[in-house]
């Protein structure tokens, strides 16, 4: 009987496979293909145009001997660390506040979320301006009589990265808050009741019970923040262009500048390969724990 013939493996789910072609294409050609292309070319001396004259690890040697790259990495580490910590902390606290059955919840939520609608360019521009010592916060405080007040994060190399952080948080915490809020709302209300009956103070319930329960939510949030952090470029360009000096350089800008300004594709590729590598170093163990762990139950 024809019907009983076992269909070929490839033919099962055919529509699904066809429908997934764009994804497969993107995954293989764009992400894998382009990544491989990038990695390969990071071993060449490509300048303006990609070429295949291999120079071994020369690009990497130069990369790691570059002061600017080191500063970029440091900045990314600082920015990334604080961005994650503060986004999660602020996002969570805000969500917890909004979750107190308060009035005007949707108004507050909209206020906290709207910056997310604005691009980094715009964010950078506004904050550059607010933080400008000549007519921003500093001048306002001074005009109130506090003559010695000094607040010029964007012009002080030691703290410029925090100036960028302020803007980054302003733009990004709204979304995190939303995710956290959704997470809080998904927690069984009986847990709250149980902890009240147990006589546990609210803050302690949050810290000891609710936060651990929201692990998946935190992970989703973390992934979102992390993708943003690795790519932070627009914000820096809009706020400081990496300055003062090279105090606020970030890896993505290093990549961009070398590829397009210095016309040294090889160097840009080496830098981006390093970025990818560090992402992979963080991501792969995590994915292993996360997905490998599920099977064990």
């Amino acid at each position, binding site marked *: 009987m024809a019907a009983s013939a076992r269909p070929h493996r490839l033919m099962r789910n055919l529509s699904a496979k066809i429908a997934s072609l764009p994804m497969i294409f993107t995954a293989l050609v764009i992400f894998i293909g382009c990544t491989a292309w990038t990695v390969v070319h990071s071993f060449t001396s490509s300048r303006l145009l990609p070429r295949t004259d291999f120079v071994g690890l020369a690009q990497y040697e130069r990369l790691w001997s570059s002061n600017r790259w080191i500063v970029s990495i440091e900045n990314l580490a600082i920015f990334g660390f604080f961005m994650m910590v503060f986004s999660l902390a602020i996002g969570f606290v805000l969500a917890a506040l909004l979750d107190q059955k308060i009035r005007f919840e949707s108004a507050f939520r909209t206020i906290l979320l709207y910056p997310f609608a604005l691009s980094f360019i715009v964010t950078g521009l506004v904050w550059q301006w607010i933080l400008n010592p000549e007519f921003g916060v500093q001048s306002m405080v001074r005009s109130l009589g506090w003559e010695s007040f000094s607040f010029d994060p964007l012009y002080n190399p030691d703290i410029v990265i925090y100036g960028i952080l302020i803007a980054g948080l302003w733009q990004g915490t709204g979304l995190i808050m939303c995710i956290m809020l959704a997470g809080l709302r998904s927690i*069984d209300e*009986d*847990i709250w*009741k*149980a*902890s*009240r*009956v*147990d*006589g*546990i*103070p609210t803050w*302690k319930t949050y810290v*000891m*019970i609710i936060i*651990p*329960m929201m692990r998946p939510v935190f992970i989703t949030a973390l992934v979102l923040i992390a993708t943003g952090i690795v790519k932070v470029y627009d914000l820096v360009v809009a706020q400081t262009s990496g300055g003062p000096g090279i105090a606020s350089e970030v890896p993505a800008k290093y990549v961009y500048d070398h590829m397009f300004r210095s016309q040294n594709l090889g160097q840009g590729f080496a830098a981006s390969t390093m970025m990818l590598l560090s992402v992979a170093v963080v991501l792969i163990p995590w994915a292993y724990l996360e997905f490998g762990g599920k099977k064990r*139950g």
Partner: protein
Amino acid sequence: MQSISIRDLKLSFGALTVLDTLNLDIRDGEFLVLLGPSGCGKSTLLNCIAGLLDITEGQIFIKNRNVTWDEPSRRGIGMVFQSYALYPQMTVRGNLSFGLKNQRMPRAEIDARVARAAEILQIEALLDRKPGALSGGQRQRVAIGRALVRDVDVFLFDEPLSNLDAKLRSELRVELKRLHNRLGNTMVYVTHDQIEALTLADRIAVMRGGVIQQLDAPQVIYNKPANLFVAGFIGSPAMNFLNGAVVQGGRGFRFGDQLVPLAGYDGGRLLDCADAVLGLRPEHLRISTTPVAEGINAIVDLDEPMGADSLVWLRSAGAQISVRVPAETRHAPGDEVWLVPDITKASVFDARSGQRM
């Protein structure tokens, strides 16, 4: 002595009044079951007792102390939830001791209490597992343990068994009953499962729409339901209701063109009533395959063997009647039979008021 007294309790959610002027006294050491259909306000009442909801009006006393405005943790109550509400990232031990630690109880005392509760509930071996690694029944026990360690006067249960499968449910039911016998605490238990209510309760409060319909011992509720609602709600399969009229000065019940004598009825003196309902439980009917003078003529519809016994479904004068028969008995659909009721166990209701006569 009253363990819990509720005085003129009123509770509204905005415009919706869920409980209105509710009064309830629960005796010390009593196992009281709140039974009723979904949405009737059982959980709401329990939450009011626990202090998890701010009441709108009235007073609540626990052990003669006015706790109306007390925090849940200071009312001397323990609570067990339908979803268990265990803290998932803590071990069983952590779950049990968390509340105590919070009261700054000495370590040794905590350990002793946890050990005792674990022993009572037979979960000693599970103390270092997380809730995720427990079966439904075990989780339920841990949830009870959490109330147990706090040495409370009153246990509140909100449908603690309804997430479990039938087998486990019946096992835990027995355990719970034993626990109550052993501890002697007051227990207030919410359920919509009548078997649980009947087996566990010292008294059952049947609720409907926020109002207590009947508060009495299970046998009374089962055998002498106060009204049609209670009668229909309790018993599975439900009590058979025959719509008809009380005639002959209360001595007979007219059902279709048949007349059922009411001699031996256990209730008030019956008066004639044009619109009455005769309630007969399936086990209070006997099937005769030969004509019986005063029996109710019926046609067999369906046969449901249930292992220990069987149910026979019949039709008579437009009504559907179920009869419980021994397991071996078989009746073929379409057979004509006569049903002989045990009137001493029957209930007659006034169809208009719904009250038992």
